[in-house]
């Protein structure tokens, strides 16, 4: 649940970028980091191996400033995609307000995508969270690769988007679709604010 703290006038949302290894989750965050004005971003914390693979997780705090009188912050996390980092994924997923599932559009990665999406649902279920209640946005990344290497969005939709959630094509390396995805998940998450009011007035 996204938190509205009326006492401190803060709204904080945790958004987790989920997906198979090397699908471009960290690239998404890096692009966001580059676009955010200096005074609005915290340090991006990235724990990576020498081969630039996310070992633990990435964390990018974004300060959106005072909106409607509330200091609004987005905390963007990525999970390590590799299968053997299961426990880290669960940890990062805790307390998530929304999930961006970054799928690798390459044809040969379809199975990994499906496996990772299953893994997401399983991890949510483990934490007692109904996946249908969790704001989710799909991103079909690497759409800038040659046509013959990637799947059409229809095919990806059929394979992954059985919940009919918002889905975006992206080329995270050059930034296309990155902010569309982020705006969409931020919108979905913040629309659930009303249910999160601690004062219990609604």
């Amino acid at each position, binding site marked *: 649940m996204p938190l509205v703290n*009326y006492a401190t006038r803060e709204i904080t949302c945790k958004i987790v970028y989920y997906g198979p290894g090397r699908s471009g989750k960290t690239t998404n965050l890096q692009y966001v980091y580059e676009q955010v004005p200096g005074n609005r971003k915290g340090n991006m914390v990235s724990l990576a191996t020498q081969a630039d693979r996310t070992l633990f997780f990435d964390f990018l705090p974004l300060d959106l400033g005072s909106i409607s009188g509330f200091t609004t912050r987005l905390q963007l996390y990525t999970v390590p995609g590799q299968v053997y980092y299961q426990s880290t994924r669960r940890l990062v997923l805790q307390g998530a307000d929304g999930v961006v599932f970054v799928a690798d559009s390459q044809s040969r990665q379809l199975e990994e995508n499906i496996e990772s999406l299953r893994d997401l649902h399983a991890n949510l279920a483990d934490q007692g969270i109904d996946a249908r209640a969790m704001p989710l946005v799909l991103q079909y990344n690497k759409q800038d690769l040659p046509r013959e290497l990637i799947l059409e969005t229809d095919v990806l939709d059929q394979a992954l988007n059985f919940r009919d959630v918002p889905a975006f094509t992206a080329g995270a390396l050059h930034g296309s679709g990155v902010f569309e995805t982020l705006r969409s998940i931020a919108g979905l998450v913040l629309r659930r604010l009303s249910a999160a009011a601690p*004062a219990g007035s609604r």
Partner: protein
Amino acid sequence: MDLDARYRFETYVVGTGNRLAVSAARAVAQAPGAAYNPLFIYSGSGLGKTHLMLAIAHLALQRQPGLRAEYTTVDEFVEELNGAVAAGTMDALKRRYQEVGLLLLDDVQFLAGRREMQSEMLRLFNVLQRSGRQVVLASDRPPGDIADLDDRLTTRFAGGLVVDVGEPDYETRVAILRMRSEERAAQFNPGVLEEVARLRFRNVRELQGALNRLIAHQTLGESPLTPATVRELLGERGDGVVRATPVRAQASEFDTLLSDVSEVLSQQLEAWRIRVSEAITYWHELGYHAGRLERALDGASEPDVDALLTDYEAAIARLRDLQQTAAKFDHRLATSELFLDPERVSEAELVVARLIGTVDPPPGPRVEFTRAEFDVGPSNQLAVHAADTVVQEPGGKYNPLYLHGPSGVGKTHLLHAVGNELVATRGGAALVACVNARDFTDELIRALQDGTIERWRVRYRVLDVLLMDDVQQLTGSERTQDELFHLFNSLYAAGRQIVLAADRAPGRIEGLEDRLRSRFEGGLVVEMQRPDHALREKFFARQLAASGQRVDHALLEYLASRPVGSVAEVSALVTRLRKAADIVGVPLTAGLARKELEGSFAAPTVTRSTPGRSVDESFLDEEKVVWEWPELSGRAIEEYR
């Protein structure tokens, strides 16, 4: 300094968006260097920053014609500086600016990136600030947002008061349009100006431009404009889209994210929470605490937001008044944290009140009226007992204590004596005022004339004890009664003692408001009667002793039997008798007194044998001496008469 006469406070329309800026500007103009130094005004273009700056200069010069005021823009200043460097007259230029009493610097955002200029500015700023000169700055953005501005300048700019001039709301736009139309002697059909205001121009300059077009159109056209034709004429504004602050053509992806989030939040959060939260943000930026608003925001249910904000803003207005007053006494106090917390208004009031109280105290009790010299008899013992109780327990049993009785029975003496006793018991630390009702009214009138009413109130409200004499003189002075009513309540609520004296009971004072009468009667009302025999004897004994007369019992008995009603009468009588005795050249005796007062030497009404008197004493009995030489004394008295 030549000022454009149009730019005055009188021609500046005040609305919700600029109220704070205007009151700050006024405060600065009224006391340059005292409050809010520097004053930093920022807003988008065309919202009246320059107007406000010039208005400050106008008012300041009007109040202090000798003041040196200088208005300039950063660009002009740079040019001047460059010219002076080229001509080698840098020192003269510096001196000129350093002698300015009020510096108004416009377009401060253009200091961005000009490092040399900034150090020059910093030096000038330090000189002006140290000598208490007023600096007013205007910019299109707050100090912190001016790019590449030296941190020392940023903190100095933000060190006084930073206010923004907001966009005018609908009502303000209508008011501006009406004022400008009147200035131009232009008349429009009803509803035309309102229709223009509805187009939501956020920029006064553009609003004025639109008005100019209407005026031109109406002057040239055949028929007067109607509300319906306004949108036609100002068509490009007809969509209600505000163009004064256009969205950047290529908004960054981050900006788009912000605007999305902003839209969602405005739908998701309750409107009242947004209102309260924005108010908190606004006041926080100005440095004010907003605990009251924060608690309301954190509450479960919707409060009366209008009332909440009105109260909060009223408290801030009060704090600002107090801050200004405090600054008059001690400039450093203007920056005190106390004046930034609306929940500490009463504390701030107390501080200011103490400040005023120490500098300009109301008159205290007169020291010559002491309790020791106040004689007690059956006719006044109740009053004296009550007065003594008040001294022991000020603000306790008898509050207020209301003493009444005919003139001369010692009310004033007792009143002042109570005051002196209270001062003494508190080691001189008590603030005790003893004031006559007539003087109280006169002071109030003077305060109203001078505009120092707040000061006047405060110096009374800080009192520990209020003693008021001749309360019957409040008759007919409504405003005084009103002020006294509030003063009474304030003192009473704080447990301070009030003692009042009048020539009649509260219920018999004509024109005394019921609310005051009931309060006066709510304590203890005691009558002081004309002095009885025992008291008269004491009066005479004291007066005779004071005038150096030898006091014998027969004389005292005789005098005390006289129907005197007041100490003043006693005093007059003693003076008269002493003179008579002086003329005759003999000491005052009962016989002489009787002769003087009744015109005969009839046998005294009271005779008393004086057994055991010595011969010497008998010889010194002046009465006998007079009897032995009747002719002589008779003649002397005859002559005197």
